[in-house]
């Protein structure tokens, strides 16, 4: 379990101190795939680098299985870092070593005998699906293949935690998917806790179980992906989850409600049945809907008719639905 307590990081810069992280509190459970999302500059990289103390927090605690890394001696810290692997956007492979030797590297550092290291490295090459690249140099690989080698290298130290800082941001969508699949697979098969840093919500949707939203160094929302995605509570959350915002038709509307889908129902049947069952027609003012782990999530803005009784009928009907929550939007401005 990873716990960050009252973590803050201040960078002294030419024009005064810059607080990149302020009072972050976060708990990441064993076996989670935990997403940390935020706009560029929100402090995501800084946060993940604090987890293995590549960046030393200015204040606060970093607890891994209850042990505060801030208190460790340099030697003990190095020991602990071996159980926290990290992969990077730019892969950061050793360019003058073959893939096999790259994967052997962490074992070499840990003092694993060369023969055994090689044997295990070959197994990891297999896991990441590149058994024929043992003797290739990183420069001869595509970006996706390089990231696979980096993942194999990250696994080689038998880690409890895998930190991924924008691990797929340099890759095309198809390759991104396959790498995410691999990470998910590793999480399930080896039970490794994964922390995924990204600015792409699609990545979170694809694999994460939990998510935290970071905005200008503050952690504004955290919870399961379902919770946060179905009903983001903060402006920053909504901006990330629904980047397009709500698009509005030109019809004048009396009152507006936000209908939030929490998985299960899908959208069109609901609107259709609203019309059929209650005979009430509503305007769809905007919708942003998505599919998370096979379930429907998202929200929709509905404009209700002027007629008060019809509007009430529609509200009651919507409230009766399962997996749907409804809230009025009091001062809606197109």
């Amino acid at each position, binding site marked *: 379990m990873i716990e960050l307590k009252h973590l803050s990081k201040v960078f002294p810069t030419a024009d005064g101190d810059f607080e990149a992280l302020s009072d972050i509190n976060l708990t990441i459970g064993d076996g989670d795939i935990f997403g940390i999302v935020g706009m560029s500059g929100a402090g995501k990289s800084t946060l993940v680098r604090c987890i293995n103390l590549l960046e030393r927090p200015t204040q606060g605690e970093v607890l891994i299985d209850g042990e505060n890394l801030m208190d460790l001696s340099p030697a003990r810290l190095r020991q602990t870092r071996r159980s926290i692997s990290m992969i990077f956007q730019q892969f950061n492979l050793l*360019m*003058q*070593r073959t893939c096999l030797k790259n994967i052997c590297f962490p074992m070499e*550092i840990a003092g694993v005998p060369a023969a055994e290291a090689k044997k295990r490295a070959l197994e990891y090459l297999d896991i990441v699906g590149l058994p024929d690249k043992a003797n290739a140099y*990183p*420069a001869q690989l*595509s970006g996706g293949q390089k990231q696979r080698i980096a993942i194999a290298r990250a696994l080689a130290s038998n880690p409890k935690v895998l930190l991924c800082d924008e691990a797929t941001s340099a890759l095309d969508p198809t390759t991104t998917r396959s790498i995410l699949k691999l990470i998910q697979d590793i999480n399930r098969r080896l039970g490794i806790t994964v922390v995924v840093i990204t600015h792409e919500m699609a990545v979170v949707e694809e694999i994460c179980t939990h998510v935290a939203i970071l905005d200008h160094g503050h952690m504004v929302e955290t919870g399961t992906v379902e919770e946060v995605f179905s009903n983001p509570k903060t402006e920053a959350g909504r901006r990330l989850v629904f980047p397009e915002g709500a698009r509005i038709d030109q019809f004048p509307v009396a009152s507006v409600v936000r209908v939030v889908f929490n998985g299960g129902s899908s959208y069109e049947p609901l609107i259709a049945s609203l019309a059929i069952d209650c005979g009430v027609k509503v305007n769809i003012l905007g919708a942003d809907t998505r599919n998370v782990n096979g379930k429907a999530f998202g929200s929709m803005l509905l404009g209700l008719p002027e007629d008060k009784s019809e509007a009430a009928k529609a509200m009651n009907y919507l409230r009766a639905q399962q997996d749907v929550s409804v809230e009025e939007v009091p001062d809606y401005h197109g």
Partner: protein
Amino acid sequence: MDKFLNQMMAALTEPAMQQEMLNGIWETLYSTAAATVLACLLGLILGVILVAGEKEGVRPLPGPLMKFINIVINILRSVPFLILMMMLLPVFKPLIGTSIGTPAAILPLVVAAAPFVARLVETSLREVDKGVIEAAQSMGCTPFQIIWKVILPESKPGLVAGFVTALITILGYGSMAGFIGGGGLGKIAINYGYNKYNYGVMFVAVVLIVILVQVFQTIGTKIAVSLDHRITDKGGKRRSKKETLGKIKENKNKSIPNGMR
């Protein structure tokens, strides 16, 4: 002109002159080799200290110490080589027992060339990707492991190229040392050309030096290229294997620093 050609012929055919030339080649080779090995070793150590010891380095050293090393290197680099040699010859005299001849020139050569090598090494080491060093840190490497297993191996091609540059520079310095009592081809060229106006012999000696430089440079470049497994091109296009290999070669040629001439 005839005189010049005759002198040249003499240098190439007369047994005594031939012997002198061969001696000169031998002296040049071994003094250059010895001075290069020592200068590169010293330069490598200094270069590693310069990079690893700075404030943001993998093993920061006290600031005043770093400042001191930098200043000493800059001073040694800024004194003209011949003057530095003249100053250093008497310093090393007690150690070597003589201040003329080939061995006498080796240690001063080392002291004069090591700071230059240190800067070449420094430049090569700084080219290692910060991200790779960070990755190594995240794996729990000690500073020594990062230097020994990451920084040095990753910059090997650049280091080798730097050492070749050092070798050739030291060959040139060594020839100039002929002016102040050093041995080798440089001394022959200076003796005959400058002192005796025998330009034929001087020309032969100079051509021999040029040939040595060409040979060292060619071999050195080949080695540096064969050691490099990077593709510097970031185009990231997928290529067939054959094309890729061609590309590697092309890029390797490009990646040899201009400093090597």
